[in-house]
């Protein structure tokens, strides 16, 4: 513990509330996410002026205006590229990227995968409502196949992405999933994401009450939640069900649902290891539609964590190494180059 007592009063959630009126639809899941972020921020050891929020386009991306921090509301799909430039220029900044499913995975898909592999130390919150909200209700690349939306009156024939598999495939070093209607879980995940040094990708199931209402209700509503959700925790067995009476077992590399009873004890279950990428992929692959009979539960929590140098650290180290070896070249030397001649 430090002996130095800070004289500045500890920040509260209110310190992160901007003077702008929040304009999301009543009942929108975005409110909860905004509120949880504002609640956890005072706990982080970051100067307020060092927070930067960068967003793309979509309902979620208005988030930037509601945080009393530095913020840049950029263009559709490009927040990851803007954030990369910010972080490369000033690694001291605490950069948070706010995006939606269309913004991240459709128009911004290219930037999304490249951000993951580069591993800038950026916190990436993807609000997934499986629909285009701001353009008034077209299906997104995360919408379930068959969805009837504005642009698919006869149902979508598009196969959706599994965003966590995509992130893992793109070499993301932190992959997690949470829910708008579970504030405590969100706060825990945001703290975990913030602790991680690298790109932390968090998918948040977020209800759009206007265009895709209750699409996640099996995972959020009291009567079905415990049957449909598998809350994963590092080092803990995978238990779910109304009475914590079900679990996941691994049969080789195949997850199998078992009842916890005299034949299967809790000790036989799959123990979550968030450092195991193979198993993280298996977990991410638990993506069954609830209408399937039977179907696997949907996992929530931190799927995967990996320590890998960040892009900005490698860049800074390279600059230091080259500078140490070659020194800084003076402008006059740069201007003259290696070979000159004189005309008298």
């Amino acid at each position, binding site marked *: 513990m430090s002996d130095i007592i800070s004289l500045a009063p500890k920040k509260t959630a209110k310190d992160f509330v901007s003077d702008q009126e929040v304009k999301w639809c009543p009942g929108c899941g975005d409110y909860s996410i905004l509120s949880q972020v504002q609640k956890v921020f005072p706990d982080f050891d970051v100067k307020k002026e060092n927070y930067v929020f960068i967003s793309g386009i979509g309902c979620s991306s208005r988030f930037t205006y509601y945080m009393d921090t*530095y913020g840049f509301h950029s263009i559709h799909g490009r927040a990851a*590229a803007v954030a990369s*430039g*910010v972080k490369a220029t000033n690694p001291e900044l605490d950069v948070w990227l706010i995006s939606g499913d269309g913004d991240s995975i459709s128009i911004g898909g290219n930037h999304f995968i490249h951000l993951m592999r580069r591993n800038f130390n950026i916190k990436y919150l993807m609000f997934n409502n499986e629909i285009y909200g701001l353009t008034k209700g077209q299906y997104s690349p995360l919408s379930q196949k068959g969805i009837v939306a504005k642009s698919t009156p006869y149902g979508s024939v598009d196969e959706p992405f599994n965003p966590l598999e995509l992130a893992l495939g793109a070499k993301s070093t932190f992959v997690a999933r949470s829910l708008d209607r579970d504030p405590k879980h969100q706060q825990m995940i945001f703290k975990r994401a913030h602790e991680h040094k690298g790109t932390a990708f968090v998918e948040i199931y977020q209800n759009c009450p206007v265009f895709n209402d209750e699409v996640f209700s099996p995972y959020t509503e009291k009567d079905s939640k415990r049957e449909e959700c598998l809350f994963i925790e590092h080092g803990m067995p995978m238990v779910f069900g109304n009475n914590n009476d079900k679990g996941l077992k691994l049969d080789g590399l195949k997850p199998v649902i078992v009842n916890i009873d005299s034949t299967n004890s809790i000790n036989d279950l799959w123990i979550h290891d968030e450092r195991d990428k193979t198993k993280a992929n298996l977990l991410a692959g638990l993506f069954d539609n609830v209408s399937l009979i039977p179907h696997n539960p949907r996992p929530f929590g931190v799927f995967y964590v990996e320590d890998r140098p960040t892009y900005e650290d490698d860049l800074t180290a390279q600059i230091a190494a080259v500078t140490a070896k070659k020194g800084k070249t003076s402008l006059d030397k*740069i201007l*003259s180059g290696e070979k000159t001649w004189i005309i008298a």
Partner: protein
Amino acid sequence: MNTLDLKSGKVTDVREAENIVVRFSGDSGDGMQLTGTQFTDTSAFLGQDISTFPEFPAEIRAPIGTVAGVSGFQVNFGSKEIFTPGDMYDVLVAMNSAALKTDIHKLKKGGILIVNLAGFDKKNLKLAHYPEGINPLEDGSTDDFIVYKIDVTRHVKDALATSGLGNKEMERSKNMFVLGLLFWMFDKSMDYTIGFISDKFKKVPDIMNANITALKSGWNFGDNTEVFKTRFKVDVAKLSPGVYRQITGNHATAIGLICAAEKAGIQLFLGSYPITPASDILHELSKYRGNGVKTFQAEDEIAAICSAIGASYAGALGVTTTSGPGLSLKGEAMGLAVITEIPLVIVDVQRGGPSTGLPTKTEQSDLLQAIYGRHGEAPMPVIAAATPADCFEAVYEAARIAIEHMTPVIFLSDGYVANGSEPWRFPNAANLTPINCTFITESNNPDGKFLPYKRDDRGVRPRTKPGTPGLEHRIGGLEKQDETGNVSYDSVNHEKMTHLRANKVDRVADFIPLAKVDTGKEKAKICILGWGSTYGAIKTATLELIAEGHDVAHVHLRWVNPFPRNLGELLKGFDKVLIPEMNMGQLCSLIRAKYLIPAESYSKVQGLPFAVDELKSKIVETLNSK
């Protein structure tokens, strides 16, 4: 004239010339670019003025021996000031049949043709699509020239017989043999090139020795064989006294950006996606890690500009480099930089378009895209470089205006100035124009809340950066309320902001030089108005026409948006205005629209720069027309 060559004692024809144009032409794999560069650098070091024009195919290695694979390097060097690489060649080196076929039409009558005989066998003639039984060296078609047929391949193999190298490796040195011969012909020292080879191949002594041997045997071949009756004498140029270096446009662009960032006291960040002919700027800047230069090879053109916008937002000089197709992709993000009023330099090295077009050829057809090519009312300053060395000053000015006026700026170069080179009397760092980059750290509002869009008397908003306590604020692509920068959908406010942004760009004109006559006099009978890389050709044509007694003047624009304040008045003083451009008349449309004068367009879209002679004919024709 016939003189006695004192050194060898042989009688030779020594031609004195003010300038000579040499074209090295061969297969992509023949090393013509390297040969030309070495010849050029040597000429420059000897104090001659030069201008070069490298021309290479879009394919990296088109099939050997075909016309598609011909790579050329043209250099004009002389004792007078040189502004272009020359229209026609005095000397053509053709390493194979395809090279001859491609370039022979521009060899002057009486000019010297040097061919590598090995490139004119049956196979090579066929690859160049000469009809069966036709050999241009034997059918009389080259009778207008002094032709030297040399079996370069055999001579090189003879010279390297004891080198222990294989056939293929020996053949690779044939360009050095040719270079040695040319050095003899123009009485140039081989020292510079020997130094270059020694350095380049210091780790492979066999190759180093082979190249030096080939170079020297080329020289000796000229000196000993008495085949060559002609040598040339070109004096040193009367350039302004000073220290010079050789520079290409892309290299000058790279170091101009480094200087601007350092003079402004901020980091340089380049977000770029490789594209011909702009990639060399990325390559060059990536070497300067020791100076803290951050180059970021982005996943695409859009990420490139967006990362640069992010970098500028965080306090750097954000730069993105591209060519026409990339500029199109960056359009939306440019709009973001316009509305957020963030400094940004966008470098467009133009090439032949549309689409992939002519990627290795030059054109000026992105002018209107640069000025207007965005959604919404999104004006930004646009500056264009006139020559390779001018890329330095023009991009430095672009950065200065971007930083001091909080605006994205487009810098236009093109394939011709980007790859061309010239001697440059480079400035001292201390003499560079200062760039004032101020980040405010305290609120500009006595009542408290920071006003990120409160402008100064130039219409420029304050710059701050994340990490500054107390100035937390939000910016973005939505229309902002005047002064506060908060999102506003108010219609009157939108119109006001649109005008404020436009006025800010317009007022840049108060911070740039007035237009003036470059060559000739004001109120001449005809003004040749140019912009960008046509400078050398227009200047040369104007100088020659004035010498021939015509009343011609040349005005050249550096800033194409905004125009210099006096441009309309200046142009109205001439009887006629002719605007040569390597496009369909884009500047001409702007001039006619803005000043309501009957300017005439002279358009060329062949992927090639203007020839001086064609310009002169057009100017005289225009002068004589009613």
